[in-house]
């Protein structure tokens, strides 16, 4: 089977996965106690108002009727309208997604660069003080509460040293003119290099906070994978031939060791997209995690359903890309 067939098959497999997702999400959010109409109108609402709102939101229909209406709308590309803001979800979700993309990509780049290298060096100098230090740090990193880390970073790097701003994406006194909503790109398009630096500085602390856990996981994975590969015969042969140690490690070993690492990177990138909520909250970033979170607290069904659906879709796509990358890196891998 060639690559194209493989991709098509994988894309077709997506359909039942996403359909299942919509169904589960649909059922779960309706199982949350609390009538959305009552939640929206609040403690002081009269019963008539609640009833009228339920009707206008279509909530008085049986759940399966609501579900099939929702599916029907999805097929036409309609993700529904937010109950709270009365704006279509397709329209309002992009700025939130863009914020999260920018942050996640920044974070995953940090996590990969630092994590992979720390893992390699640890494996190379196994049982050295660097190895011990790096692995202890990685253990701390995996178990670090982001909430605490974020606030400590704000205290140290913003309040004490004044290196980075505490919260937000930009300096609101000199706001970025949004075009793509990816501010790093927007500022460059407009030639505002001063703003580019400001936006970048806003990304550093949340980026590091978000990168901590994936970085640690990637480092540990790389180390164990490298240790295994470096014990193999072809590495010994390469070294016996007098190849420089650096090339043995970074070229011969890494190529075979990177496959499991790649899987972890793929999974972690997907998790960052949906799981940046804590980071987004502490650093006041309007990302998609916060969008869905606010949807949940106001029982905004369309926002929750469509938000989770989009994040799930991206997650599945990233993993597809990773699967395809396997064969690019290691031609021995065939898709059957």
């Amino acid at each position: 089977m060639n690559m194209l067939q493989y991709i098509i098959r994988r894309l077709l497999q997506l359909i039942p996965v996403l359909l299942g997702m919509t169904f589960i999400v649909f059922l779960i959010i309706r199982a949350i106690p609390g009538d959305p109409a009552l939640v929206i109108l609040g403690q002081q609402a009269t019963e008539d108002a609640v009833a009228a709102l339920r009707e206008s939101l279509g909530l008085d229909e049986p759940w399966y009727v609501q579900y099939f209406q929702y599916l029907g709308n999805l097929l036409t590309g309609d993700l529904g309208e937010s109950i709270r803001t009365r704006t279509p979800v397709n329209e309002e979700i992009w700025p939130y997604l863009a914020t999260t993309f920018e942050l996640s990509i920044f974070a995953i780049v940090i996590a990969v660069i630092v994590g992979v290298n720390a893992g390699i060096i640890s494996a190379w100098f196994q049982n050295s003080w660097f190895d011990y230090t790096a692995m202890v740090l990685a253990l701390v990193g995996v178990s670090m509460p982001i909430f605490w880390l974020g606030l400590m970073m704000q205290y140290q790097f913003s309040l004490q040293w004044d290196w980075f701003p505490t919260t937000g994406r930009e300096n609101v006194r000199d706001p970025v003119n949004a075009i793509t909503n990816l501010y790093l790109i927007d500022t460059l398009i407009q030639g505002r290099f001063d703003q580019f630096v400001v936006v970048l500085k806003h990304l550093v602390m949340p980026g590091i906070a978000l990168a901590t856990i994936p970085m640690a996981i990637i480092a540990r994975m790389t180390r164990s994978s490298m240790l295994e590969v470096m014990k193999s015969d072809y590495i010994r042969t390469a070294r016996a031939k007098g190849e420089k140690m650096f090339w043995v490690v970074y070229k011969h070993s890494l190529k075979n060791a990177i496959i499991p690492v790649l899987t972890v990177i793929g999974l972690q990138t997907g998790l960052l997209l949906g799981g940046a909520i804590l980071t987004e909250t502490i650093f006041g970033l309007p990302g998609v995690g916060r969008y869905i979170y606010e949807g949940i607290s106001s029982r905004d069904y369309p926002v929750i359903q469509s938000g989770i659906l989009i994040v799930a879709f991206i997650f599945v796509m990233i993993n597809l890309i990773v699967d395809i990358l396997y064969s690019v890196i290691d031609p021995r891998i065939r898709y059957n």
Partner: protein
Amino acid sequence: MNKKAWLLFFVLLLTVSTALFGCSSDDSSSDDGGSTGNDGGGDAAEETDGETQDTLVFGRGGDSVALDPITVTDGESFKVTKNIFETLVEFGEQDTDINPGLAEEWEVSEDGLTYTFMLRDGVTFHDGEAFNADAVVANFDRWANGTEDKFYYYKSMFGGFGDEEGHVIESVTAVDESTVEIKLKRPQAPFLKNIAMSPFAIVSPKALSEMSEDELAENPVGTGPFKFVEWRRNERIVLEKNEDYWNSEYPKVNQVIFRSIPENSARLNALMSGEIDLADGINPSDAPQIEGDDSLQLFERPSMNVGYLGLTVTREPFNDPKVRQAMNHAIDRQAIVDAFFEGRAEVAKNPMPPVIAGYNDDIEGYEYDPEKAKALLEEAGLGDGFDMELWAMPVPRPYMPDGQKVAEAIQSNLADVGINAEIVTYEWATYLEKARMGEADAFLLGWTGDNGDADNFLYVLLDQDNIGSNNYTYYENQEVHDLLIQAQSETDEDTRNQLYMEAQELIHQDAPWVPLAHSTPLLAGSANLQGFMPHPTGSDWLHTVYFE
């Protein structure tokens, strides 16, 4: 290279790059501080050094829902619309007394049915339209033809829409260019307070006729001191000075930017670093730190709420007033306020806070006296105590930061007098629903006032008409009911206040509640911020704010 040399190389590489990173960000920060003033921290510092700052950045916990004030119910929306729009009459600077607004003067007929408003001259909307009597009529017409799920506050304050029986407004007519006459079907004493509320702000009639409801929600056009510029959801709302504002003294700053930072500690960090100038939702536990910091100042918002323990009077043994009084004596409110409100609240003795006209300050609250409580229980035939459920709210509310902990304190107070209370909790919406059905023995709850009127507390929360609605204790007293109904149509302010004072006296004796506290929400600002007066309603005027 050997193994050791490589390791050394990597460590050096790491050190050097870290150092470079640190330095480069240091450099760039001073760079743009000098050239464009871009960096958050450098910016504020620079502006205090040089010319006076003229942009106010207000950091808050959440974003607005919509900026068409009649359609919303949330405080975060009113915080913004308050500064874009104006109402016919306005609340006082820090109270809910009635002051001139878009109407300079008004007259009320003897029977309390006709209100005549003389409108202010020379007022224009932000889109250039003149403000006049027709504009007022257009707005009232729009509201009166709405529905409850669209215009929630209109129904709740004026009883209905169009021809509905409960609708209190009969007609709104333009007598001439600058005179509006509003006729009521029956007298409504808090009428002026109602129309001073943020939802009843006057929107440009041109905007009303040209824009759809959805467009109005994102393009507010009013007469207020600030004009709307831009809204990026969850990121910023930008307002700029209205150069044509009728009161040429105001506003003092050129620009106001609202930012949402959900986390309280992060918001305070942003304030300390100078990225924002004013922050609401300050944790009471952070107050001492702010008071000790020379670059910051602390603000207390006057309380317009009450947190209480409701005793469902239809359930044994709370059907006996003696038991309810015993509960009042058994609970140490001062200790609760000190421990869980960090002292940032007033101990409550009445069902409404002291800023509200008609508050009865002569009432002596039930003092904390376990012995007296025991004696009262003895009289009620419950000398051996009893078992009860104590309901604690699952979410923090402005009137009660931590329901669970308050419940635990009450539980231990009650144990001292032999009452065995079991703490129970439900998800918030369910909690309200069940308490409303009268299923709780005793429940923690609270209320934040809408229009600063006594009716909005006493009638809504304790009148027999509202059993099954907001009277969760099922308290019924014909005498109280008569007083509250009489007060609703009494137009003389002093007589009306007298009626409310009598009602509070009766409620105090019947003791359907253990009133606990009136909390004062905290805000903090940079030290050079001047002229900020937090309003009890939670919507603050920002046109008086300036920087030193």
